[in-house]
């Protein structure tokens, strides 16, 4: 019996569960303290069950929708744009990395700027992109694309560069054409690195889209978030969005990990 217990406690998921449990307890203790001390505890730290209750209730909070409906409805607009931008960013990031690998001149031209763009707080310039494009939807996509672009580009390029010299030698011995070297060796080698880039990029794309929402009252999760904070509707909508966006952030990295796993059978063993 003790041995069996020991076996369970040695598992990684057990430790993770312990941590989650600890966080939940900490949250609830905090919520009780806040509830005793403050007049509007739901603004500061509501009980978890209150948030869940708000999600489950059928009470209409905004425009004839329940809290959960309202969140999902805005999430659709926001996440769709985030996904679109993410897609464009990832594709162009990969293409740029390929271009830089293909041509030394292009690499020298662009590499310092690729490093530079990482250092620029792109989210900080979101408002100006909105001003230039003039359209909230376009700017959402553009910003998500820029933010997805550079982690994908730098990681993929690193993948191309990590190919061992012996593999080039082998291709040379086989008298392989450049196209062959790319399709058979370089691109497959860079795939895991490409996925690493995607995993970094995805939460950024989501964050960017939500942030851009808050800049203009035109629907979307961020917009709903600001309204709820200004008490234009139930504050629990705010809490739902906090949890929902955290959840989305975690889920997308898991989904990308799962896609990587399913396209790379050699990793399963």
């Amino acid at each position: 019996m003790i041995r069996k217990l020991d076996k369970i406690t040695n598992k990684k998921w057990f430790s993770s569960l312990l941590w989650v449990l600890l966080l939940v307890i900490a949250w609830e203790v905090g919520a009780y303290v806040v509830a005793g001390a403050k007049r509007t505890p739901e603004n500061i730290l509501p009980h978890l069950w209150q948030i869940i209750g708000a999600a489950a209730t059928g009470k209409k909070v905004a425009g004839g929708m329940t809290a959960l409906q309202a969140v999902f409805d805005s999430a659709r607009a926001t996440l769709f744009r985030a996904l679109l931008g993410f897609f464009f960013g990832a594709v162009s990031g990969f293409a740029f990395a390929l271009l830089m690998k293909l041509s030394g001149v292009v690499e020298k031209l662009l590499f310092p700027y690729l490093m530079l763009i990482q250092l620029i707080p792109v989210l900080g310039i979101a408002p100006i992109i909105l001003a230039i494009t003039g359209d909230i939807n376009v700017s959402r996509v553009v910003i998500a694309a820029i933010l997805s672009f550079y982690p994908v580009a730098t990681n993929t390029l690193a993948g191309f560069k990590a190919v061992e010299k012996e593999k080039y030698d082998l291709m040379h011995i086989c008298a392989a054409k450049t196209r062959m070297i790319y399709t058979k060796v370089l691109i497959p080698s860079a795939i895991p690195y490409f996925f690493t880039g995607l995993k970094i990029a995805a939460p950024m794309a989501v964050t960017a889209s939500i942030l851009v929402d808050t800049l203009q009252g035109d629907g979307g999760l961020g917009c709903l978030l600001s309204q709820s904070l200004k008490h234009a509707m139930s504050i629990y909508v705010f809490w739902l969005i906090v949890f929902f966006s955290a959840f989305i952030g975690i889920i997308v990295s898991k989904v990308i990990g799962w896609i990587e796993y399913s396209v790379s059978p050699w990793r399963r063993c």
Partner: protein
Amino acid sequence: MSKEREIEIITRNLGVTFKDDQDKDVVALTNVNLEICKGEFIALLGPSGCGKTTLLRCMADLQKPTEGDVHIQGMTPKEVRLQQKFGFVFQQPVLFDWRTVKKNIELPMEIMGRSKGERSDRADEMLEMVGLKEFANHYPKQLSGGMQQRANIARAFGLDPDILFMDEPFSALDEFTKEKLHEDLLRIWRATNKTILFVTHNIQEGVFLSDRICVLSPHPGRLSAIVDIDIERPRSLEVKDSVHFTELVAKVRNSFEGGSIA
């Protein structure tokens, strides 16, 4: 070796000089003159820094000599390489993680544009030859180091090359695996009649495998002796216990210590 056999590879005054970080010349290899017959098993033997790998790479057109030249089948190494007549086995098994063992063996054939059916048949044949038939659909990471190196050899033979270059292919393996692979290599070589150039720093290995040993000495890298290995073929592991074997090992060793003939 029999004199009437056709000469396949000739090197003349072959030399390679590198530039180091301070732009100073470093002579890696100088004045190598060598004639290798078709179907011969040649060992290039020497301590590290003697230029044996450099010599191999020059012949395989992986490196350009700075002096002299190499002729293979009356052509430049580049011309022969472009006809895809070379096979190369590296010290580390250079396998592709995302391909199964069989797909790894098929890779050079894919590059040559062979048909799918032919590739598959040939790969099966090679797998059988190196004794990896049951592992055809495994991924490289699932194999032991010895099995990976077998797959590597199978891939080099898969193209049916005229000349096979092997750069210390067994040096990372344990003694038991190594002996097994020595026997396998000799069996495959006998069956296919390739010209093999085998780089090694192990005297016993060189004596056991080859027809002739080219002894190289360092500083600067040069060919210091050529020793004929007249042990009868086919050779089995017992050969290593014979007096003649020991004598040949001693002879090779002395050719280092006795200085150079150059």
